[in-house]
């Protein structure tokens, strides 16, 4: 089938291409983010590694109810509950394997006391694999901003 020259001509296509690349060449807008100096603007519901909320006296807010390990789809939360003299439940062991985590955010949604949060943190490189299992102390020590939950009154987060 013989198509019209306008759609098959190598010369014309090349000239169009040269014009296009030249427009981009002189265009002042560049997409590069100069990373360590410039940071990306994260969305309010952007989900990164976890953070455990802390009471004013330094205790974790977690009441070891067991909802987050139950709902976790990737089974990455290990929780061993304990009880003190007054009958308050607290986590004896609370570990999150960040390698297994799929960052769905369901633990944060299900938490009745707003203790476990997803956080806005992405600089989490480590030298060993063991360091990716975050224990309770580490989760409490995290200080990056926490992820906002989905608001039904503002579905598009505006």
């Amino acid at each position, binding site marked *: 089938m013989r198509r019209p020259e306008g759609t*098959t*001509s190598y010369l*014309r296509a090349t000239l169009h*291409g*040269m014009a296009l*690349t030249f427009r*981009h*060449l002189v*265009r002042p807008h560049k997409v590069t983010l100069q990373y360590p100096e410039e940071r990306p603007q994260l969305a309010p519901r952007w989900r990164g590694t976890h953070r455990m909320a802390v009471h004013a006296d330094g205790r974790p807010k977690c009441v070891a109810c067991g909802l987050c390990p139950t709902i976790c789809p990737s089974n990455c939360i290990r929780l061993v509950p304990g009880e003190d003299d007054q009958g308050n439940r607290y986590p004896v062991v609370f570990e999150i394997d960040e390698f297994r985590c799929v960052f769905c955010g369901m633990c944060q949604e299900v938490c009745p006391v707003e203790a476990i949060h997803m956080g806005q943190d992405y600089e989490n490189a480590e030298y060993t694999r063991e360091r990716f299992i975050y224990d309770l102390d580490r989760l409490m020590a995290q200080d990056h901003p926490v992820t906002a939950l989905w608001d039904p009154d503002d579905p598009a987060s505006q």
Partner: protein
Amino acid sequence: MSPTQPVSALGGIPFLVIMVVKVIVVFVSVITTVAFMTLLERWISAWIQDRLGPNRVGPKGLFQPLADGLKNFVKEETYPDQASRFYFVMAPMLSMIPAMITFAVIPFASPLPTPWGLVDMVVADLPIGILYILALTSLGVYGIVMAGWSSNNKYSLLGGMRASAQMVSYEVALGLALIPVFMLAGNVTLTGIISMQQQMHLWYAFPLGLAFFLFIVASFAECNRLPFDLPEAEQELVAGFHAEYSSMKFAMFMIAEYSNMLTASALMATLFLGGWDIPLWQGDNMWLGPAGIVGATPAWWKTLLTFGSFATKTAFFVFLFMWVRWTVPRFRYDQVMHLGWKVMLPTALAFIGLTGTSILVLDSLGVPYGLVYGLAMTAVNVVAMVAFFWILDRDRVIAGAEGYERRVRIAEAHARGMRVPPPVTQHAGD
């Protein structure tokens, strides 16, 4: 000794000193320019892709070539176990040395008057001029083929084979595209060609535009730059002929590629855009006659201005090389061969005939060599260019595989004694 006499008349030690100074200055400038061309290439590729490009080393990334050079020196030299060591080491040298020394015959500014005499701004104004360049650029292919063969790697070998086939094919078109220039200038020295363009008051790009176009395309193929970079074809051949090279030997191939590009750009500027000639200004129209300088008086500021003119033209062609590289995709192998042998070669031959006829007609009409002569040639050339581009626009081989496949099917059917098969059934939405 009068300051308008060429310094070559001095002879002896002063001449030797001036030549050594010129060689060192030109060599260092070429090497430095090549280093910064690698940076420019990365900038242009980045800008075309809406990125920023190198900007970390020094102000605005200007010291990037130094960092690259340092890195290349301290990297490990690797020798493939099965490689032929002698040729493996020879190949980068054979690539780089011809690429570096071709610049010697290119005049880069108008003659400079000094107290010792007139210094022409060219390392060696050889009487064979452009033939020297053609001879040396064809040596460049040996380095590439040798690298491909001695690496003992099938991809390198394929790259080397492609390089040899491609460079030999396009050398023919390159040489033939230059014949009209020689015919019009009546000279093969580059200084002679520049002075003839000044005497015509018209750059040869106008009367010989078709040859100019063919020369640009053939230069792209000779420099192995996209769309003719089949010898290194990253997607198919890893890196082609230099896949096994590391550290400074790899850098030598890069220096060879970029200095080839620089020489080709300078050559295009010299042959077709008047070299160091400044357009629309008569003050720089000077050339060496048998009895010293003819035309305008040389001056140091004219040397500077004309050098600026030469550098601008060369930089434009270097930019064109890079601009095309980051726009046009690679040709298929059969397209390269088709373009070289069935398009470029006949066109170059036809244009030689056309130019020869025009020169003969104009000479027998008694038109003196000058602006009118050039304009008459320009008119003929415009007709030739329109015809050439009209045909090339309808050429199906570089347009896409479809027309080519149909022609192959027809040829095969003929060979089997069958009738021509019906056209391919149209697909829905085709």
